[in-house]
Each structure stands twice: as C-alpha cells, then as structure tokens.
C-alpha cells in the first residue's frame, strides 16, 4: 500500500511496498539471541491458564502445585463426578419408591471408591516421582481425600434430602456420614498399604457390605448399620485406619 500521489516512492509507506525478500541465507545478528526470543514466544503460546476452581484452590491452599494436584484428582474428574451423582440420584429415586434409604446405603460405598481412586501407587503412574517433589505426596493425598469426601458428603446430603424421607428417619438420612467416614478411612488405609487403588475399593465396599449385612442378620433391618450406638466405634475405627494410612505413606517400600 503506497500513499496516493507519490511517484512510486514509498519511503513513508506503512506497509512497505519496496521490501524485497532476501534470497539466500540471512544470518541473524550475533548479539541477538533468537532461542531466547523463541522461549519467550513459546512460553506465552504453550502456557496453560488455570480455571476458576484451581485459582481459588491455589489461594486457599496457598500452593499452586497443590491446587493443580487437586483439580487433576482422578475421582474428581467430570466423568467420575457424574457417575457418583447418577448413583446417588438412582438411590434417591429408589428410596422414594420403596422407602428403603438407599442413599444412605450407597453413599459410603461410592465415597470409599472415590477415596481409593484419589491418589496412590495404583492410580498415579508417576508415583515414584511424586514422592520426591516439594509438595509432599502426603499433602496431596490429604487434600484430595478431604475434597472427595466433602463432595461425596454434599452430594449424598442433597440426594438424601431429595429422597423425601420424613423427619423421624432423619437420623438415617444424615446418620450415614459417620459410617461413610469409617468406610473411606478403611479404603484409604487398604489402598496405601497395598499400594493399589483397586484393593482399596474392594476393601471399602466389602467392609461396608459386611457391616450392613451383619446389621440385617443381627437386628433384622438393613438400617441397623446406622445405629447411634455404633457412632463411637465407627469413629474409633476411622481413626485407626487413618493412622495406618499415615504410617503407610511415611515409609516408602519396594525393592532396591
């Protein structure tokens, strides 16, 4: 584009029409570091911009690394969350239909599975490496487990409320939180000791199934597992499992 009225001269043209493509190799000036320039370009082009959840987590946890580890939790990924909600919604629907508090029965098992799949050698391929990072793998485990537990509890509460169980059964409606804690702790302990997420899931689910069935057998109803008298035993059990998980994550084992 040359400016009008100029006889082919383009000294002040904005898009230089008189530029000619250099043929042959043009070497860049020796004092200009092109690889440094490219690194700057690539840094902008390749960078990842954290989503709002991660940004918030980074501020709350005061660690961008921990926040990133949290949002990449396998059992907090969208697919898993949707599956959890579906299971609990189905439970709510079933409760509305039959009156049996399915949500209360499902929620601990689902949460236990979620906890087992939050972190650990069975699920994290770069497990060895993550044991050498400044953000300790134990912190990651703790934060992820709490987040999974919290989300499952919230989803469970919502489903329980939606299942319309009346006030007298409120103890059952919300009394599954403590058993859920125990099941999650069991799943966590099993997963960290066996270094396998699948073992954790299996332990959590079978432990819970056994408890519920034992209640059915001894007291004749499925909801016996939610008895108030069991609150303290559940919490004590959860504390023991927590201690086991803590210990298991302290000493890395393995062959030389």
């Amino acid at each position, binding site marked *: 584009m040359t400016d009008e009225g100029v006889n082919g001269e383009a000294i002040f043209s904005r898009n230089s029409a008189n530029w000619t493509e250099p043929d042959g190799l043009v070497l860049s000036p020796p004092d200009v570091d092109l690889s440094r320039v490219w690194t700057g370009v690539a840094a902008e082009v*390749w960078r*990842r911009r954290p989503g709002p959840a991660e940004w918030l987590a980074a501020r709350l946890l005061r660690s961008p690394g921990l926040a990133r580890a949290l949002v990449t939790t396998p059992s907090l990924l969208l697919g898993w969350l949707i599956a959890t909600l579906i299971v609990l919604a189905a439970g709510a629907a079933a409760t509305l239909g039959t009156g049996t508090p399915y949500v209360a029965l499902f929620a601990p098992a689902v949460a236990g599975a979620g906890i087992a799949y939050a972190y650990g050698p069975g699920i994290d391929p770069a497990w*060895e490496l993550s044991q050498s990072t400044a953000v*300790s793998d134990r912190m990651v485990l703790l934060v992820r487990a709490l987040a999974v537990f919290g989300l499952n509890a919230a989803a469970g509460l919502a489903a329980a409320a939606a299942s319309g169980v009346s006030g007298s059964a409120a103890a059952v409606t919300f009394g599954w939180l403590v058993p859920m804690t125990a099941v999650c702790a069991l799943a966590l302990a099993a997963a960290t000791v066996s270094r396998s997420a699948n073992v954790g899931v299996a332990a959590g689910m079978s432990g819970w199934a056994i408890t519920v069935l034992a209640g059915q057998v001894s007291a004749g109803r499925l909801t016996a597992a939610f008895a108030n008298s069991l609150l303290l035993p559940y919490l004590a059990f959860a504390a023991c499992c927590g201690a086991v998980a803590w210990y298991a994550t302290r000493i890395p084992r393995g062959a030389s």
Partner: protein
Amino acid sequence: MNIELTDLTRRFGRTYAVAGVSMEAGPGVFGLLGPNGAGKTSLLRMMATVLPPTSGRLRLLGRDPGSPGPRREIRRRLGYLPQSLGYYPGFTVAEFVEYFALLKDMPPGRVPRAVAAAVEQVGLGDKAKAKLRTLSGGMLRRAGIAQAIVNDPDLLLLDEPTAGLDPEQRVAFRAILRGLGERATVVVSTHLVEDVGAACSQVALMDAGKVVFDGTPGELIARGEGSGAAGDAPLERGYSAVLAAARSVPATRSAAGTPPGPETWA
C-alpha cells in the same frame, strides 16, 4: 559440596541393597555404573529423598533430608528422573512438565518460560502440545528429562536417562548434561558404559551395595589395560576388570544374601 554421604546403608528385610557408601560431590557430572542389583537405584532414591537410609549420614545441598523443612528445601532444588517413569496419558508434554514444575514449588510467574526452555532443550519443541499417549518411548524419556531440569536444579539425579534414545539423541543429551554440570551436581546412573565416558568427569562403580571404584573415566580405562578383561571398548574392559577384582576378594562387611556370582550384566 552438594552431596555428602558417609557410610550410608539401606536394608530391605535382611538384604543390604546399599552396604556402606561414602562419597562427596560438588558441581560436575558423575557417573554411577554397575550391574543390575548393585544398589545404584537405591542409592539414587536415597539421594532423591524418596527412600530414607537405614544408617549413615546423608547431607544434600548442605541440608539434612531427615527433617521435613530442609527436605522440602532440598526438593525445590532437586531434579529426579526415576528408572520407570509413568506418565499421564491425557496430559500434553507442556502440561506434564508444568505439573512437576508446580509441584516443585516454582513461582507460578516463572513457570511458563521455564517449561518452554526445558521442552526446547530436550528437543520436544514440536511436540509441546501433543498428548503423552501419542509419543514414542524415547520421546517420553525426554519428557521425563524435561521435568527433571525444569526448575534448574542444583542436584540432578537421572536413573537410566538414555533408555530408548537413539544415538543422535544421546549425543544431544550429553551436551545438556555437560552444560548443567557446570553449576549443578548431576548423577547419572546407567548400565551403558559408553554414555558415562563421554559426559562424566567422575565415575563410581558399584557392586553388591558397595562402591568398588571411584575415579575418573581415564583411571577406569587404565584399570582395564593389560588385564585381559572382557569388553569391546576401553571403558568396558576397565569395568570388567574392576568387577572381577572386587568379586575375587571375600566380602569383609556383612552384605548378607549377596554372594559373589558370575558377571551378569546384560
């Protein structure tokens, strides 16, 4: 001194994987050679603060990794590439390197540039936004090297870093090592003897949990001369000679469960 080991041991059950190792290392590139089962990986894992020692003294970057605070500070200045590094299939190369940059407490403002520099340095600039599941084994290894160097570590520990790399890539990799070794302490554990000769200023040879040779590559070559030991290259002959000499001497310290055996490296 970035690494100071004094009589370090590591026991699993009744076996000593590391049976009393003492060494000191400042800046430079150090090779760790030895047959499988010699204890190289355990030693490296102890230096990576992944495995606590059973006994002995370990000081890294002037700090004691036994306490959480100093351990965290060491880990910020540490780069580690384990022998088998899993990867997150859905991550891209850049995301993978960035993930570990963040886990190493790098300030977020510095991360994008550091990631770009590391990815370019290992020659994966064309694959920065490619998903890890689409990469070959050699490329994955290079991605692993990139995450190890992203925080410009003072202590870089690499366990079999050149597995799966073709010769041209290995040459490029050695150039990276030499550059890094100017300021940092780089420890490369490998069973590829030639790798060591080209890049390392100092070599330690381990067998059955102990260091049986500690010197320069030239000195290792000298040990092999005229000994009639097996090997196609001077370094390999030195390697064989040292191992043979070490194994013909009865074990003085209890390295239970590891009697001298035939040379078994692949």
